[in-house]
């Protein structure tokens, strides 16, 4: 059996900077198999962002274990984590985090280059991703000149540029209108069919509907973890009740 793409064992996060410690994540166990698409849902403040940030090594855990592929990651030094992330993880932040001094094209190509792609591969990958997200004509712009929805799509393209073994995303469709969401859905569906592992925090039911599995958090704990089944086929009329 191959290693899980991602694994968390009794993962805990306590923010202890303030007057009272905040128990944001309280003992989460999670195992994500290669190729799985997991939607992480739950009310605001339930610990979703904290969880995926820890899984991506962007926030330190208080206790517990994190495994990426077969590698124990939570005990790595910051620089070793950064190296692992570069090779294996794509991250889409809730608030984009694009490099302001680089063009859109360079923002997307850079992680591919850092991940070990040749300049030609990086360019082709960038062209494909920007094309799929309807951003080709924005390639030479600077991120500051883009709308929120455009920046968010660039952030998704960037996260997919190095063909990461795991794509982690924190509400990547929060700023999109319905047309752009369709492009994002199509791309996510495409990379998922090609075997991309995805763990995505989302409130968007259309995005979550693409997932194989839903993990619901409440108050820092997993309260539900199960498959999303597909049953119905047929025409819209058969699925949708006309009252």
């Amino acid at each position, binding site marked *: 059996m191959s290693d899980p793409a991602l694994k968390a064992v009794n993962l805990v996060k306590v923010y202890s900077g303030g007057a009272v410690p905040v128990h944001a994540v309280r003992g989460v166990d999670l195992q994500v198999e290669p190729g799985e698409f997991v*939607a992480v*849902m*739950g*009310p605001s403040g339930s610990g979703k962002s904290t969880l995926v940030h820890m899984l991506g090594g962007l926030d330190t855990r208080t206790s517990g274990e994190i495994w990426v592929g077969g590698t124990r990651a939570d005990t790595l030094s910051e620089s070793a984590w950064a190296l692992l992330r570069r090779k294996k993880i794509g991250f889409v932040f809730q608030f984009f985090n694009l490099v302001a001094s680089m063009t859109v094209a360079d923002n997307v190509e850079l992680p591919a280059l850092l991940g070990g792609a040749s300049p030609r591969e990086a360019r082709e990958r960038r062209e494909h991703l920007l094309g799929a997200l309807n951003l080709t004509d924005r390639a030479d712009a600077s991120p500051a000149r883009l709308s929120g929805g455009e920046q968010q799509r660039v952030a998704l393209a960037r996260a997919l540029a190095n063909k990461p073994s795991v794509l982690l995303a924190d509400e990547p469709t929060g700023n999109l209108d*319905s047309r752009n969401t369709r492009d994002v*859905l199509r791309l996510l*569906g495409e990379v998922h069919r090609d075997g991309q592992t995805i763990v995505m925090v989302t*409130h*968007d*039911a*259309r995005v*979550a*509907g*693409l*997932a194989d599995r*839903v993990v*619901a958090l*409440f108050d820092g704990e997993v*309260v*539900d973890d*199960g*498959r*999303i*089944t*597909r*049953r*119905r*086929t047929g*025409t*819209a*009329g*058969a*699925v*949708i009740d*006309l009252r």
Partner: protein
Amino acid sequence: MRLHLLALLAKEPAHGYELKQALEQTFGGAYPSPNIGQIYVTLGRLEKDGLVRAVDVEQSNRPNKKVYYCTAKGRDVLTLWADEPTEGPRVRDEFFMKLVLAPLTGIADRMALINRQRRHYLSLMGDLNDLQARTAPDDRVALLLIEGAMLHLQADLDWLERCQEDLA
């Protein structure tokens, strides 16, 4: 289906089979494939109520066919139908009743009910995603209907989260 057929007849007179085709043409994949028997039963009721009338049209080598047309009374009923605001979705649905009543009896807990319902909504959404991907881009009516269903589901899911925050 009564008023839907009546509206099609107000556009032009038709026999039963033509109505079936008109429904399919107008709604694309968005109308549950109408059953011809059901159409004739509905036409019979409309006729009895005086909203449509039928004339026999002779056909060579075949039995006469009945062509239906909309009466003045039928038009009045349609006008009323179009002018009235349409009821919105009902929020106090069966799920909400379960959510409130089932925990009182100890037969189910709220967290479990909410979690199961969330999975159900997401699986419906998955079906709608598949359906949207399979629907031809020029089948505008079906696509609009799918999008409407998706927006309703999104609202249901958001509301489920509110129930969880408040009741858990």
